[in-house]
Protein backbone atom coordinates (compact mmCIF):
# COMPACT_ATOMS: atom_id res chain seq x y z
CA UNK A 1 0.00 0.00 0.00
CA UNK A 2 1.36 3.41 -0.91
CA UNK A 3 2.08 5.43 2.19
CA UNK A 4 1.12 8.65 0.41
CA UNK A 5 -2.34 7.69 -0.79
CA UNK A 6 -5.23 9.29 1.07
CA UNK A 7 -8.68 7.84 0.62
CA UNK A 8 -11.62 9.93 1.85
CA UNK A 9 -14.32 8.12 3.80
CA UNK A 10 -17.67 9.84 4.18
CA UNK A 11 -20.08 8.21 6.62
CA UNK A 12 -23.79 9.02 6.78
CA UNK A 13 -23.85 8.73 10.61
CA UNK A 14 -27.67 8.72 10.41
CA UNK A 15 -29.10 9.33 13.85
CA UNK A 16 -32.41 7.51 13.45
CA UNK A 17 -31.12 4.02 12.73
CA UNK A 18 -28.60 1.65 14.33
CA UNK A 19 -27.06 1.31 10.88
CA UNK A 20 -26.15 5.01 11.04
CA UNK A 21 -24.31 4.48 14.30
CA UNK A 22 -22.55 1.46 12.82
CA UNK A 23 -21.52 3.45 9.74
CA UNK A 24 -20.00 6.08 12.02
CA UNK A 25 -18.18 3.66 14.32
CA UNK A 26 -16.90 1.49 11.48
CA UNK A 27 -15.54 4.56 9.73
CA UNK A 28 -13.84 5.70 12.94
CA UNK A 29 -12.33 2.25 13.38
CA UNK A 30 -10.79 2.33 9.91
CA UNK A 31 -9.48 5.87 10.46
CA UNK A 32 -8.00 5.13 13.87
CA UNK A 33 -6.92 1.55 13.75
CA UNK A 34 -7.07 -0.21 10.45
CA UNK A 35 -5.80 2.26 7.82
CA UNK A 36 -4.77 5.38 9.75
CA UNK A 37 -2.10 6.46 7.27
CA UNK A 38 -4.28 6.18 4.21
CA UNK A 39 -7.63 7.60 5.21
CA UNK A 40 -9.22 10.95 6.02
CA UNK A 41 -12.79 12.02 6.63
CA UNK A 42 -15.16 14.95 6.81
CA UNK A 43 -18.56 15.39 8.49
CA UNK A 44 -21.26 14.68 5.90
CA UNK A 45 -23.54 17.60 6.87
CA UNK A 46 -20.57 19.94 6.65
CA UNK A 47 -19.66 18.53 3.27
CA UNK A 48 -23.23 18.77 1.94
CA UNK A 49 -23.88 22.24 3.24
CA UNK A 50 -20.35 23.54 3.07
CA UNK A 51 -18.53 25.77 0.64
CA UNK A 52 -16.20 24.95 -2.22
CA UNK A 53 -13.29 24.27 0.14
CA UNK A 54 -15.22 21.46 1.78
CA UNK A 55 -16.38 20.07 -1.54
CA UNK A 56 -12.81 19.98 -2.79
CA UNK A 57 -12.42 17.11 -0.33
CA UNK A 58 -14.04 14.54 -2.58
CA UNK A 59 -12.60 16.00 -5.75
CA UNK A 60 -9.06 15.56 -4.47
CA UNK A 61 -9.52 12.23 -2.72
CA UNK A 62 -10.78 8.96 -4.12
CA UNK A 63 -13.80 8.64 -1.88
CA UNK A 64 -15.71 5.81 -0.23
CA UNK A 65 -19.19 6.54 1.06
CA UNK A 66 -20.66 4.51 3.91
CA UNK A 67 -24.44 4.75 4.13
CA UNK A 68 -26.59 3.21 6.79
CA UNK A 69 -29.66 2.65 4.64
CA UNK A 70 -30.80 2.65 1.04
CA UNK A 71 -31.59 6.36 1.08
CA UNK A 72 -27.88 6.71 0.29
CA UNK A 73 -27.50 10.26 1.63
CA UNK A 74 -23.71 10.08 1.64
CA UNK A 75 -23.37 8.62 -1.85
CA UNK A 76 -25.94 10.87 -3.48
CA UNK A 77 -24.65 14.00 -1.77
CA UNK A 78 -21.03 13.28 -2.61
CA UNK A 79 -21.78 12.51 -6.24
CA UNK A 80 -23.95 15.60 -6.56
CA UNK A 81 -21.23 17.97 -5.40
CA UNK A 82 -17.96 16.25 -6.15
CA UNK A 83 -18.49 13.61 -8.83
CA UNK A 84 -18.51 9.80 -8.81
CA UNK A 85 -17.33 7.98 -5.72
CA UNK A 86 -14.78 5.17 -5.86
CA UNK A 87 -16.86 2.82 -3.72
CA UNK A 88 -20.28 3.01 -2.10
CA UNK A 89 -20.99 0.74 0.86
CA UNK A 90 -24.38 0.27 2.49
CA UNK A 91 -24.43 -1.05 6.04
CA UNK A 92 -27.87 -2.65 5.78
CA UNK A 93 -26.70 -4.61 2.73
CA UNK A 94 -23.41 -5.68 4.31
CA UNK A 95 -25.14 -6.89 7.47
CA UNK A 96 -28.08 -8.34 5.58
CA UNK A 97 -30.52 -8.28 8.48
CA UNK A 98 -27.97 -9.07 11.18
CA UNK A 99 -28.48 -5.62 12.66
CA UNK A 100 -31.90 -6.17 14.21
CA UNK A 101 -30.46 -6.26 17.74
CA UNK A 102 -28.10 -3.32 17.28
CA UNK A 103 -28.48 -0.06 19.18
CA UNK A 104 -28.30 3.61 18.26
CA UNK A 105 -26.62 4.77 21.46
CA UNK A 106 -23.20 3.63 22.65
CA UNK A 107 -24.62 3.05 26.13
CA UNK A 108 -26.71 0.18 24.79
CA UNK A 109 -23.98 -1.46 22.75
CA UNK A 110 -23.71 -5.22 22.89
CA UNK A 111 -21.54 -7.86 21.32
CA UNK A 112 -23.88 -7.76 18.29
CA UNK A 113 -23.04 -4.10 17.78
CA UNK A 114 -19.32 -4.70 18.08
CA UNK A 115 -19.42 -7.54 15.60
CA UNK A 116 -21.44 -5.44 13.18
CA UNK A 117 -18.89 -2.64 13.42
CA UNK A 118 -16.04 -5.08 12.87
CA UNK A 119 -17.78 -6.57 9.83
CA UNK A 120 -18.46 -3.21 8.21
CA UNK A 121 -15.02 -1.83 9.01
CA UNK A 122 -13.44 -4.86 7.35
CA UNK A 123 -15.38 -4.05 4.19
CA UNK A 124 -14.32 -0.40 4.30
CA UNK A 125 -10.67 -1.37 4.79
CA UNK A 126 -10.93 -3.79 1.88
CA UNK A 127 -12.33 -1.02 -0.32
CA UNK A 128 -9.50 1.29 0.79
CA UNK A 129 -6.93 -1.34 -0.16
CA UNK A 130 -8.50 -1.86 -3.56
CA UNK A 131 -8.49 1.85 -4.30
CA UNK A 132 -4.92 2.30 -3.12
CA UNK A 133 -3.75 -0.66 -5.17
CA UNK A 134 -5.47 0.80 -8.22
CA UNK A 135 -4.39 4.38 -7.76
CA UNK A 136 -0.84 3.88 -6.53
CA UNK A 137 1.34 6.92 -6.79
CA UNK A 138 -1.19 8.84 -8.88
CA UNK A 139 -3.19 9.60 -5.76
CA UNK A 140 -2.83 12.88 -3.98
CA UNK A 141 0.14 13.28 -1.69
CA UNK A 142 0.13 13.90 2.03
CA UNK A 143 0.93 17.54 1.31
CA UNK A 144 -2.06 17.90 -0.99
CA UNK A 145 -4.26 15.99 1.39
CA UNK A 146 -3.48 18.31 4.24
CA UNK A 147 -4.86 21.25 2.31
CA UNK A 148 -8.33 19.80 2.13
CA UNK A 149 -8.54 17.21 4.88
CA UNK A 150 -10.70 17.80 7.86
CA UNK A 151 -8.28 18.29 10.73
CA UNK A 152 -10.32 15.96 12.86
CA UNK A 153 -9.32 12.95 10.79
CA UNK A 154 -5.89 12.83 12.32
CA UNK A 155 -5.20 9.25 13.38
CA UNK A 156 -5.09 8.39 17.04
CA UNK A 157 -1.61 8.47 18.53
CA UNK A 158 0.31 5.25 18.49
CA UNK A 159 1.81 3.51 21.48
CA UNK A 160 5.48 2.64 21.58
CA UNK A 161 6.68 -0.80 22.60
CA UNK A 162 10.14 -2.34 22.67
CA UNK A 163 10.50 -5.22 20.22
CA UNK A 164 13.84 -7.01 20.38
CA UNK A 165 15.47 -3.87 21.72
CA UNK A 166 13.97 -1.58 19.09
CA UNK A 167 11.27 1.01 19.70
CA UNK A 168 8.20 0.36 17.52
CA UNK A 169 5.08 2.56 17.33
CA UNK A 170 1.77 0.76 16.76
CA UNK A 171 -1.20 3.00 15.85
CA UNK A 172 -4.12 2.72 18.25
CA UNK A 173 -2.51 0.04 20.41
CA UNK A 174 -4.22 1.45 23.49
CA UNK A 175 -7.60 1.01 21.82
CA UNK A 176 -6.69 -2.54 20.82
CA UNK A 177 -5.75 -3.28 24.43
CA UNK A 178 -9.00 -1.71 25.66
CA UNK A 179 -11.01 -3.82 23.25
CA UNK A 180 -9.25 -7.05 24.24
CA UNK A 181 -9.64 -6.22 27.92
CA UNK A 182 -13.37 -5.77 27.35
CA UNK A 183 -13.51 -9.21 25.76
CA UNK A 184 -11.93 -10.63 28.91
CA UNK A 185 -8.39 -11.31 27.70
CA UNK A 186 -6.30 -12.07 30.76
CA UNK A 187 -3.22 -9.97 31.43
CA UNK A 188 -0.85 -12.92 31.65
CA UNK A 189 1.43 -15.00 29.45
CA UNK A 190 -1.52 -16.85 27.90
CA UNK A 191 -2.56 -13.68 26.05
CA UNK A 192 0.41 -13.62 23.65
CA UNK A 193 -1.19 -15.41 20.72
CA UNK A 194 -4.40 -13.38 20.81
CA UNK A 195 -2.45 -10.13 21.06
CA UNK A 196 -0.28 -11.08 18.11
CA UNK A 197 -3.26 -12.17 16.04
CA UNK A 198 -5.14 -8.91 16.69
CA UNK A 199 -2.29 -6.46 16.34
CA UNK A 200 -1.09 -7.89 13.05
CA UNK A 201 -4.42 -6.86 11.47
CA UNK A 202 -3.31 -3.28 11.90
CA UNK A 203 0.46 -3.48 11.92
CA UNK A 204 2.73 -5.53 9.64
CA UNK A 205 4.53 -8.34 11.46
CA UNK A 206 6.83 -10.65 9.52
CA UNK A 207 6.81 -14.37 10.43
CA UNK A 208 10.37 -14.19 11.76
CA UNK A 209 9.34 -11.33 14.09
CA UNK A 210 6.44 -13.18 15.68
CA UNK A 211 8.24 -14.40 18.80
CA UNK A 212 9.67 -10.97 19.55
CA UNK A 213 6.32 -9.27 19.00
CA UNK A 214 4.49 -11.87 21.09
CA UNK A 215 6.83 -11.23 24.01
CA UNK A 216 6.75 -7.45 23.60
CA UNK A 217 2.96 -7.26 23.27
CA UNK A 218 2.38 -9.52 26.27
CA UNK A 219 4.66 -7.37 28.38
CA UNK A 220 3.06 -4.13 27.15
CA UNK A 221 -0.47 -5.48 27.70
CA UNK A 222 0.34 -6.50 31.28
CA UNK A 223 1.79 -3.06 31.99
CA UNK A 224 -1.20 -1.33 30.34
CA UNK A 225 -3.70 -3.33 32.37
CA UNK A 226 -1.88 -2.51 35.60
CA UNK A 227 -2.23 1.21 34.82
CA UNK A 228 -5.91 1.15 33.78
Amino acid at each position, binding site marked *: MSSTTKVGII*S*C*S*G*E*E*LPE*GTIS*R*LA*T*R*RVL*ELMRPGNTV*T*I*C*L*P*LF*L*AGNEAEREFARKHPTITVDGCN*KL*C*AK*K*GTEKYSGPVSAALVVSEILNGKCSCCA*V*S*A*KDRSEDDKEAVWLVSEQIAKAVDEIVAGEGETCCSDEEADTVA*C*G*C*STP*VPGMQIQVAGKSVTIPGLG*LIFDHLAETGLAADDSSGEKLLETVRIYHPIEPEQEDDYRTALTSAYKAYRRQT
Partner: protein
Amino acid sequence: MIPNGNGKKTIVIPCSGIGKVQGLIAREAAYAAAAAGGGELLCLALLVSGDEEAVSRIRDAECITIDGCPKLCAVKNVEATGGTVAKSIQVIDVLKNHRGAELGTATKLADAGWAVAHEIAQDINHCESEVK
Protein backbone atom coordinates in the same frame (compact mmCIF):
# COMPACT_ATOMS: atom_id res chain seq x y z
CA MET B 1 -43.51 11.89 21.14
CA ILE B 2 -45.47 14.55 22.98
CA PRO B 3 -46.34 17.82 21.24
CA ASN B 4 -44.93 20.92 22.89
CA GLY B 5 -46.92 23.91 24.15
CA ASN B 6 -47.60 25.12 20.62
CA GLY B 7 -49.15 21.82 19.67
CA LYS B 8 -46.16 21.13 17.45
CA LYS B 9 -43.90 18.14 17.75
CA THR B 10 -40.31 18.59 18.85
CA ILE B 11 -37.45 17.18 16.82
CA VAL B 12 -33.95 16.94 18.28
CA ILE B 13 -31.20 17.22 15.68
CA PRO B 14 -27.55 16.74 16.65
CA CYS B 15 -24.69 17.43 14.28
CA SER B 16 -23.06 14.03 15.01
CA GLY B 17 -19.72 15.41 13.82
CA ILE B 18 -17.51 12.43 13.12
CA GLY B 19 -14.16 13.97 13.92
CA LYS B 20 -14.39 15.37 17.39
CA VAL B 21 -15.63 14.24 20.78
CA GLN B 22 -18.06 17.16 20.81
CA GLY B 23 -19.88 15.56 17.86
CA LEU B 24 -20.34 12.33 19.79
CA ILE B 25 -21.50 14.24 22.85
CA ALA B 26 -24.11 16.00 20.70
CA ARG B 27 -25.26 12.66 19.31
CA GLU B 28 -25.51 10.91 22.68
CA ALA B 29 -27.24 13.92 24.22
CA ALA B 30 -29.89 13.71 21.52
CA TYR B 31 -30.41 10.00 22.18
CA ALA B 32 -30.70 10.59 25.92
CA ALA B 33 -33.16 13.46 25.44
CA ALA B 34 -35.29 11.47 23.01
CA ALA B 35 -35.31 8.44 25.31
CA ALA B 36 -36.65 10.64 28.10
CA GLY B 37 -39.44 12.01 25.93
CA GLY B 38 -37.66 15.16 24.79
CA GLY B 39 -38.49 14.76 21.13
CA GLU B 40 -38.09 12.74 17.97
CA LEU B 41 -34.84 12.22 16.13
CA LEU B 42 -34.16 13.03 12.52
CA CYS B 43 -31.07 12.19 10.46
CA LEU B 44 -29.33 15.48 9.72
CA ALA B 45 -27.75 14.08 6.55
CA LEU B 46 -31.19 13.10 5.27
CA LEU B 47 -32.44 16.63 5.89
CA VAL B 48 -29.42 18.25 4.28
CA SER B 49 -29.73 16.00 1.26
CA GLY B 50 -33.19 17.52 0.68
CA ASP B 51 -35.35 14.49 1.39
CA GLU B 52 -38.93 15.72 1.01
CA GLU B 53 -40.32 13.78 3.94
CA ALA B 54 -37.54 15.02 6.24
CA VAL B 55 -38.07 18.63 5.14
CA SER B 56 -41.81 18.29 5.68
CA ARG B 57 -41.26 16.86 9.17
CA ILE B 58 -39.16 19.77 10.37
CA ARG B 59 -41.50 22.38 8.88
CA ASP B 60 -44.32 20.96 11.01
CA ALA B 61 -42.22 20.88 14.17
CA GLU B 62 -40.07 22.90 16.49
CA CYS B 63 -36.45 21.87 16.39
CA ILE B 64 -33.80 21.65 19.06
CA THR B 65 -30.36 21.55 17.52
CA ILE B 66 -27.14 20.38 19.19
CA ASP B 67 -23.90 21.42 17.52
CA GLY B 68 -20.45 20.18 18.41
CA CYS B 69 -18.33 22.83 16.73
CA PRO B 70 -18.59 26.46 15.61
CA LYS B 71 -19.48 25.40 12.06
CA LEU B 72 -23.02 24.96 13.45
CA CYS B 73 -24.09 22.45 10.80
CA ALA B 74 -27.26 21.44 12.62
CA VAL B 75 -28.75 24.87 13.29
CA LYS B 76 -27.73 26.28 9.90
CA ASN B 77 -29.16 23.35 7.98
CA VAL B 78 -32.45 23.32 9.87
CA GLU B 79 -32.90 27.03 9.18
CA ALA B 80 -31.83 26.65 5.55
CA THR B 81 -34.49 24.01 4.96
CA GLY B 82 -37.26 26.11 6.46
CA GLY B 83 -37.35 24.72 9.98
CA THR B 84 -37.87 26.64 13.20
CA VAL B 85 -35.08 26.36 15.74
CA ALA B 86 -36.71 26.62 19.15
CA LYS B 87 -33.45 26.06 20.96
CA SER B 88 -29.86 25.90 19.72
CA ILE B 89 -27.34 24.20 21.99
CA GLN B 90 -23.61 24.41 21.39
CA VAL B 91 -21.56 21.74 23.13
CA ILE B 92 -18.61 24.13 23.22
CA ASP B 93 -20.64 26.48 25.44
CA VAL B 94 -21.62 23.70 27.81
CA LEU B 95 -17.99 22.64 28.09
CA LYS B 96 -17.06 26.01 29.57
CA ASN B 97 -18.31 24.55 32.84
CA HIS B 98 -16.18 21.44 32.41
CA ARG B 99 -12.73 22.85 31.70
CA GLY B 100 -9.99 20.25 31.73
CA ALA B 101 -12.40 17.32 31.86
CA GLU B 102 -11.38 14.11 30.10
CA LEU B 103 -14.32 13.77 27.73
CA GLY B 104 -13.17 10.78 25.72
CA THR B 105 -12.79 10.62 21.95
CA ALA B 106 -14.94 10.89 18.83
CA THR B 107 -15.35 7.12 19.13
CA LYS B 108 -15.94 6.57 22.81
CA LEU B 109 -17.04 8.89 25.59
CA ALA B 110 -15.34 8.86 28.96
CA ASP B 111 -17.40 9.37 32.14
CA ALA B 112 -17.08 13.15 31.90
CA GLY B 113 -18.25 13.05 28.28
CA TRP B 114 -21.33 11.08 29.29
CA ALA B 115 -21.98 13.55 32.09
CA VAL B 116 -21.95 16.44 29.64
CA ALA B 117 -24.26 14.55 27.27
CA HIS B 118 -26.73 13.92 30.09
CA GLU B 119 -26.51 17.53 31.22
CA ILE B 120 -27.51 18.65 27.73
CA ALA B 121 -30.30 16.08 27.61
CA GLN B 122 -31.65 17.32 30.95
CA ASP B 123 -31.55 20.88 29.66
CA ILE B 124 -33.58 19.82 26.62
CA ASN B 125 -36.13 17.92 28.68
CA HIS B 126 -36.39 20.76 31.19
CA CYS B 127 -37.04 23.15 28.32
CA GLU B 128 -39.67 20.77 26.98
CA SER B 129 -41.48 20.47 30.30
CA GLU B 130 -41.58 24.24 30.70
CA VAL B 131 -43.44 24.84 27.44
CA LYS B 132 -45.99 22.04 27.98
